[in-house]
């Protein structure tokens, strides 16, 4: 495979060198049989040009058309007929350039060996081309795939962030606007919470693993702001012991899950709601469970439910596993459970 990963300009250079060597070799062999250099060189040049043309043809063919598993026989036929054409070319063209009865006799006697060497050379070229182009194809697909994945991931993250932030931000500012009039201290407190939360969001690099405690602290800022906005309607229960608080998880992974819980639990219901977040260490995994009530009449979970696909996708990209997130719905409670392997 080392040969196949060289650049294409170098490959063409090597092929041209091979062609020159081939000409020299044929000329030398013919000269060895006792013919003068003029005849030997003519033979070498003509047969090499024909062979090069055949090689170019098969290479070009394979560039645009990769034979499937069943059509190798076609390729074989191609090689055989091209070898035939080359041999026939030698037989009819060379006599025009050098008339010598002894040589003519030699030429017709050597046709069989010419045919087989041409066939081998063309077959070798076909094989190299096939490997080369299939590898190029493969490389391109890989590249496209990884680019598409990256794009999709960026878009997903952007979308997930975008869905809530503008609403959340402007509504929070509106609440502050209300508080300034009659509870200036609370307004001030909320401004601090909001700026801490936003700073945290901006600062976070989502490639990083962070302790659960840090993530919960950040989420608490968010939940406290929502508590101010919706008065006493929101209650939160967060349970996580010292041991599990040290468990590591990808940063900002929990955020969309909790935003989701708020979106369906708080924004779409009219009663008092409790959103609970529970962390546990189970064996080698950090397990986090988020629960929120929802209204089955107005919001129907579809598929994995509630657009949590972004989280699942991220878990897959990070750990190459699809079983790290589960969702359940019963008794109007929506539960999201994620497992993060502790490395």
């Amino acid at each position, binding site marked *: 495979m080392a040969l196949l990963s060289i650049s294409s300009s170098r490959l063409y250079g090597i092929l041209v060198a091979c062609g020159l060597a081939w000409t020299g070799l044929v000329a030398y062999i013919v000269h060895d049989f006792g013919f003068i250099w003029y005849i030997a060189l003519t033979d070498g040049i003509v047969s090499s040009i024909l062979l090069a043309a055949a090689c170019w043809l098969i290479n070009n063919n394979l560039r645009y058309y990769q034979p499937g598993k069943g059509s190798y026989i076609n390729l074989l036929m191609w090689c055989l007929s091209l070898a035939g054409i080359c041999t026939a070319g030698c037989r009819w063209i060379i006599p025009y350039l050098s008339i010598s009865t002894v040589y003519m006799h030699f030429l017709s006697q050597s046709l069989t060996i010419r045919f087989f060497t041409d066939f081998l050379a063309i077959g070798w070229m076909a094989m190299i081309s096939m490997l080369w182009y299939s590898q190029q194809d493969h490389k391109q697909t890989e590249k496209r795939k990884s680019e598409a994945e990256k794009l999709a991931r960026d878009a997903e993250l952007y979308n997930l962030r975008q869905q809530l932030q503008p609403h959340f931000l402007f509504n929070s500012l*509106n609440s502050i606007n209300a508080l300034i009039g009659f509870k200036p201290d609370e307004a001030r407190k909320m401004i601090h919470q909001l700026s801490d939360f936003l700073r945290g969001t901006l600062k976070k690099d989502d490639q990083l693993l962070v302790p659960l405690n840090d993530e919960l602290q950040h989420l608490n800022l968010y939940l406290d702001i929502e508590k101010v906005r919706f008065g006493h309607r929101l209650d939160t229960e967060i349970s996580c012991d010292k041991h599990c608080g040290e468990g590591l998880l990808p940063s900002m992974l929990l955020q969309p899950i909790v935003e989701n819980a708020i979106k369906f639990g708080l924004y779409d219901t009219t009663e008092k709601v409790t959103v609970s977040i529970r962390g546990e260490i189970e064996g080698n995994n950090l397990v986090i469970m988020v629960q929120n009530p929802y209204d089955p009449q107005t919001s129907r979970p579809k598929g994995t439910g509630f657009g949590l696909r972004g989280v699942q996708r991220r878990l897959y990209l990070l750990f190459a596993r699809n079983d790290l997130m589960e969702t359940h719905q019963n008794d109007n409670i929506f539960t999201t459970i994620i497992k993060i392997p502790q490395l």
Partner: protein
Amino acid sequence: MKRALIIDDEPLARMVVLEYLQAFNDQIEVMQECNDGFEGLKAIHQYQPDLIFLDVQMPKINGFEMLELVENQPSVIFTTAFDEYAIKAFEAHAVDYLLKPFSKDRFNKAVEKYLAQSPSAKPAKQTEELLEAVSQSPAQHERIVVKTGTKVKIIPVSDVIYLQADDDYVSVFTQEGSYLKNKTMNFFEQTLDPRYFVRVHRSYMVAIQQITRIDPYEKDSHLAILKSGAKIPVSKTGYVKLKQVLGI
């Protein structure tokens, strides 16, 4: 004295409106503050207000869905944080709209604009145009909100079997029964996802998943037989559309 309602699910947001309205307390009287669309509907029925301050994003049914269910449309000033669909619509049709957080000056301007409107201006027509314009927002694609008596019923679009035109109304047929909605067939043709609903006839629209069979009927027309057993007439153009969607 004009009667007004404030409908918003955030207490602090209502408080801002209430506070700003004090400047107009000799012209506008706030009858009630409402927590959501359901309370809003009840209060509108009870007080027949002249003006409502309405949030768009609210639990269960949003501000637009609530307005669809109101018969005598009052004038509406929207108060919302951010809604790209809505903002476009507001610019064209609402009395005014306030983007949260809004200043006292901006609020005063909106109210003065309302007060300056001649009493003969028809808020109903304005609001209707607005509702047509926001029919592109995603919530309307997912559910249909109807009123049965005094109750509000939310029908997920996936429960709809077919729609039938019925004078000025459209009957929405589901497994549990049919509901009347004061909208036109054209409205539903614009709102519902064309991949799942096809207008097969001037007066009928069908959920294609519900179709089990299409039989030829009279000359140039067909009958669609649904899972529920209902037989829906399919016109010549309807049949062409149906074939297109089904890919046959």
